[in-house]
């Protein structure tokens, strides 16, 4: 019988069916960070359990690290205690730690792929909802809670029910100035922030076939924002080329054998899906969120919605969004004043994101970040930062008036010194526009592609990057 990638990976990693009916699923690769792991190590100690396979767990520090003053001890004693706790836990249990001095530290979802730890046909779990990112390689990857981090440390397995699979097709060629970020915001806008509950999203179609590996990561990253805990793309030559030669990728004969296995894990052409939805790439324009959920998104040329014009079920949240965002229904999105521009995160903090923006900044040489706007660029990993610096990208950003920072989650979530202040409005390349997400309870977030963030930084307001940078 024809199978999806999810069917195949699930089958291979099923240990047994538990008494409650869920699967005891083997987690081949476990990623941990400083925020959701310390309690798990504590529980292990309390239960007298050991880490079963220390070399199948990899750690890094990302959420709480400052991106400017990185010398330890950190100015925040709580953050300092967390990094030291992770360092101690890794040392005691033999877990590999991509620590700050290693040169390989970064956001866990950027480090895994760049190290070649993220591989097709594997199962990956991490105490972070954006673990869906790794699905871009044809892995079944998902976020878990801390008790499950404990479960995976102790048994390399967890209890989980098998999701259904929705095939999400996007076909055609994106218009210039439209990016992977716009694709996923568009998908969530139409399927809803809860549309994916119970499903894994299999992204496919010619748009995905032509995407780079990093573009696929941007889309899979935000699957969870559409309610889908898992999002994946079938592995292909693009995937294999990305992985070839990375530190943890198989070498020599093992590489050839791995590629053969990886090819076989892709969904069969006649696989049956629980649901299929399709979008046309040509229909998608630069997309920006106006509200407090990632589904509250509109095209750059649209006006801020009037909650009363929306379907009844969306009205209450829309009213709350308008109040929080201090926007006016009917006003154009274009021209909304911003205070902060944040370029980074596990969604859009990769080298290709920085390259694309730097390319256009170079084309407007001499143009600076608008007066009064704070603009920061936060590379997703020390690896990304090092390459970007060698390529001269950091210099381009600095010359344009952006602050060039060290690697981490930064202003995506307000657990480190990078936070909004008061009701500042941030043009952000991150993934969540929840109330208070960027560290100030009254802070306001508008999600968009990295180039749209840069355009807003230069003009001080929400701007169509295609017009500013003469993209057509």
């Amino acid at each position, binding site marked *: 019988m024809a199978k999806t990638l999810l069917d195949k990976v699930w089958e291979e990693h099923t240990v047994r069916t538990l008494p409650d009916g869920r699967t*005891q699923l083997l987690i081949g690769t476990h990623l941990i960070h400083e925020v959701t792991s310390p309690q798990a190590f504590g529980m292990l100690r309390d239960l007298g359990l050991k880490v079963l*396979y220390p070399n199948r767990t990899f750690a890094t520090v990302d959420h709480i690290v400052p991106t400017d003053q990185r010398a330890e001890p950190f100015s925040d004693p709580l953050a300092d*205690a967390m990094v030291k706790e992770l360092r101690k836990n890794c040392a005691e249990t033999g877990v590999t730690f991509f620590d700050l001095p290693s040169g390989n530290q970064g956001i866990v979802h950027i480090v895994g792929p760049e190290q070649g730890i993220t591989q097709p046909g594997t199962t990956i779990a991490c105490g972070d909802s954006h673990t869906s990112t790794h699905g871009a390689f044809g892995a079944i990857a998902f976020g878990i*809670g*801390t*008790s*499950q981090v404990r479960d995976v440390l102790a048994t390399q397995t967890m209890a989980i029910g098998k999701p259904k699979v929705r095939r999400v097709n996007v076909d055609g060629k994106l218009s210039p100035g439209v990016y992977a970020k716009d694709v996923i915001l568009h998908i969530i806008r139409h399927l809803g922030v809860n549309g994916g*509950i119970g499903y894994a999203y299999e992204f496919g179609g010619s748009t995905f076939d032509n995407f780079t590996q990093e573009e696929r990561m941007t889309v899979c990253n935000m699957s969870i924002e559409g309610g889908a805990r898992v999002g994946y793309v079938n592995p292909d030559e693009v995937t294999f080329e990305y992985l070839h030669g990375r530190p943890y990728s198989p070498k020599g004969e093992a590489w050839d054998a*791995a590629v053969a296995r990886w090819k076989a894990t892709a969904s069969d052409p006649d696989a049956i899906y629980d649901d299929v939805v399709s979008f046309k790439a040509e229909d998608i324009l630069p997309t920006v969120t106006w509200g407090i959920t990632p589904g509250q998104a509109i095209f750059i040329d649209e006006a801020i919605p009037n909650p009363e014009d929306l379907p009844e079920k969306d009205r209450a949240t829309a009213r709350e969004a308008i109040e929080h965002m201090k926007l006016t229904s009917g006003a154009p999105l274009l021209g909304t004043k911003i205070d902060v521009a944040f370029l980074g995160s596990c969604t859009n903090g990769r080298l290709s994101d920085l390259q694309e923006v730097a390319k256009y900044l170079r084309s407007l040489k001499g143009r600076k970040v608008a007066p009064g706007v704070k603009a920061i660029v936060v590379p997703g990993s020390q690896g990304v930062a090092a390459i970007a610096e060698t390529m001269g990208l950091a210099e381009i950003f600095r010359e344009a008036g952006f602050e060039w920072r060290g690697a981490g989650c930064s202003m995506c979530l307000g657990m480190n010194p990078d936070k909004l202040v008061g009701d500042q409005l941030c043009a952000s390349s991150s993934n969540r526009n929840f*109330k208070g997400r960027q560290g100030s309870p009254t802070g306001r977030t508008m999600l968009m592609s990295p180039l749209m963030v840069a355009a807003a930084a230069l003009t001080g307001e929400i701007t169509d990057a295609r017009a500013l940078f003469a993209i057509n």
Partner: protein
Amino acid sequence: MALEKITQVTGRGVYIPGDDIDTDRIIPARFMKCVTFDGLGEFAFGDARIAEKNAGRIHPLDDPRFEGATIVLSGSNFGCGSSREHAPQALYRYGHRAIIAESFAEIFFGNSTTLGVPCVKMSQQDIAALAAIIESDPAVLLTLDLTENKVTVADVDFCAEITMPGHAREALTTGRWDSIADLVDGLEEVKNRVAKIPYLAGV
């Protein structure tokens, strides 16, 4: 590990209206700079409570009429966003023992079940009716029955159907909601499976 069999939760209710209440709302990230879950309870809905106060309103958790409520009612997609177990931990430590909503985000649902906190779905109409009952008499006792799949209210003519995935009901009602013991029981099979998977063989 012998865990309590959770078949019923009885307590007073509190209605926290709204759809898509995310885990950042339930526990803002800055309160997660900790290496244990102790003390999270007081920060449950921390910023939302302050925001309501600043706006001259009162958040349900600060409304004295609902003090001591143990059953939360809310809208759809409750617990969306971050996978932080800190969210259900904060609610649990605040004193909540069950959540009734139109729907739940999956990771939050799983995290709650693992703590022995049932998350059950109820229709929008029934939630509205139940919220109205609580509003008119905050002292009424709700009983959430996982074997009968219903919620009833003491001395009030209200009975609504609830739904929950079979595995979670089974786990809660048989006292297996924390799966660690069952997972450890399968360790020999885990090792056998690992040996058969090429990328894991030899670990």
